[in-house]
């Protein structure tokens, strides 16, 4: 559905992307993770044809992105972080513009607004919407066209947990309808919950890729079980057969309050690989 081969891009002397290869299968939610400035938005702009790469090839819907026809583009929904709305116009009127351009019947407008939870705000001017409602209106604009591919650039950035969950639900519903979703995020929880496959982007290079749980397991060097006892004491057992007897004993005595295995998260994997945090791009000490 989306394939990139050796994408490179520089701005002045700064190399932003170097040799990006991706192969995203239909119906998959693919997450591109990286800190701010890693090159995520540049890559999404190149894949969507907004920016030309210095070298490399991008294929979307089986065609080179520069050769996409108007009909092909109607199958692609793009929600970029910085894309605007017509602030003075109502939610319905904002969607009507794009319904007219894409040839979508007006009945889809109210259906989509209800779907994203903006049914009651249909006549509200976009300028009066909260940040979360604006994000949902952005999403409504792209969902209304029933896209085959959905590009979402930081779709939940800066949103409250409730709105974030709501948007996650909408994204998952799109996947269930067969839509391929390409999302960029620096929220590793979001990526873990939503994505079938992730790629970790750092300084313009993909440093790791795969299903989130596979990636995490790959870096599970510690293989420990952390137990917090009712008494308040913390103990650590090796994640191996030899610990089974002690674990059984603690459990049978009812001494265990919480128990966790020590698989790393995508965040810790990223820190291990790059020494940087995902959420702010600042240097982090990896311990």
């Amino acid at each position: 559905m989306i394939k990139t081969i050796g994408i490179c891009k520089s701005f002045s002397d700064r190399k932003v992307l170097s040799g990006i290869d991706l192969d995203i299968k239909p119906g998959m939610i693919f997450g591109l993770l990286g800190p701010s400035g890693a090159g995520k938005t540049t890559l999404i702009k190149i894949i969507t044809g907004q920016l030309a790469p210095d070298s490399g090839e991008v294929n979307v819907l089986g065609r080179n992105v520069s050769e996409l026809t108007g009909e092909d583009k109607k199958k692609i929904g793009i929600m970029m972080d910085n894309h605007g709305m017509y602030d003075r116009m109502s939610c319905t009127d904002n969607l009507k513009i794009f319904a007219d351009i894409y040839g979508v019947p007006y009945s889809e407008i109210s259906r989509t607004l209800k779907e994203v939870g903006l049914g009651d705000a249909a006549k509200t001017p976009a300028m009066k919407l909260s940040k979360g409602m604006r994000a949902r209106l952005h999403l409504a604009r792209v969902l209304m066209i029933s896209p085959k591919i959905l590009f979402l650039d930081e779709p939940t950035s800066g949103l409250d947990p409730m709105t974030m969950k709501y948007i996650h639900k909408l994204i998952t519903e799109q996947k269930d309808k067969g839509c391929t979703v390409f999302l960029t995020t620096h929220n590793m929880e979001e990526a873990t919950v939503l994505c079938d496959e992730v790629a970790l982007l750092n300084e313009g290079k993909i440093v790791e890729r795969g299903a989130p749980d596979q990636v995490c397991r790959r870096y599970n060097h510690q293989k420990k079980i952390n137990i917090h006892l009712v008494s308040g004491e913390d103990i650590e057992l090796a994640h191996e057969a030899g610990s089974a007897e002690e674990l059984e004993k603690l459990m049978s005595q009812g001494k265990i309050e919480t128990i966790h295995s020590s698989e790393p998260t995508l965040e810790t994997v990223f820190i291990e690989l790059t020494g940087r945090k995902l959420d702010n791009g600042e240097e982090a000490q990896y311990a």
Partner: protein
Amino acid sequence: MRNIGVIIRKQLKDTIKNKTVLIQFVMFPVLTLIFEHAISIPDMPELFFTKLFSVMYMGMAPLTAVAAIISEEKEKNTLRVLMMANVKPWEYLAGIGIYVWTICMAGAGVMATSLPAGDVPFFLGVMATGFLISIAVGACVGIAAPNQMVSTSMVMPVMLVFSFAPMLAMFNDKIEKVAKIFYTQQIRMLLNNMTLDGIRPENIAVVAVNAVLALILFFAVFRRKGLEG
């Protein structure tokens, strides 16, 4: 072609709620009606306010409206969304141009109500030509400016020169000599005569040169910056 219609409809809806642009379209036609009917000064030339305000309207409204619309869309990134939705730059510009031209012609129609019926076709024809040149100049500013603030700074001196030079030329011979190189002054001279017979080659030549320069400038800016800058 459908996208041009979409842009025009979008702009119609938006302008009703956009007081800054709306006032540009309405101000001079309304002032003309009021002044023509309310003010009468001895020895004042016939239809003085209609002719004066028409030229000011031509040099101001289309220019500022087009520049404001394009620069606002750039600043708010709605233009990008339209381009992503496969609206071609020429479709967008044509939509905005047709919309502004039509609204301005409606304004000119209102101003023409003070004229004798026989002069109306000539008046509207001349105004239509002037509006086209102003729209091209406004588009240059809108394309060149990265945001609304820069656009306002750029459009203000241009608009002042085109719209006020003909008025100032009435009071100062030196200004009149300079103002003759602008299409607005030539159009004011055409409106003063208000007949086909009164058209002089100089009038047509200056208006044509202004139009060609505006087009050359438009294509140069468009080629250099693209619609989105």
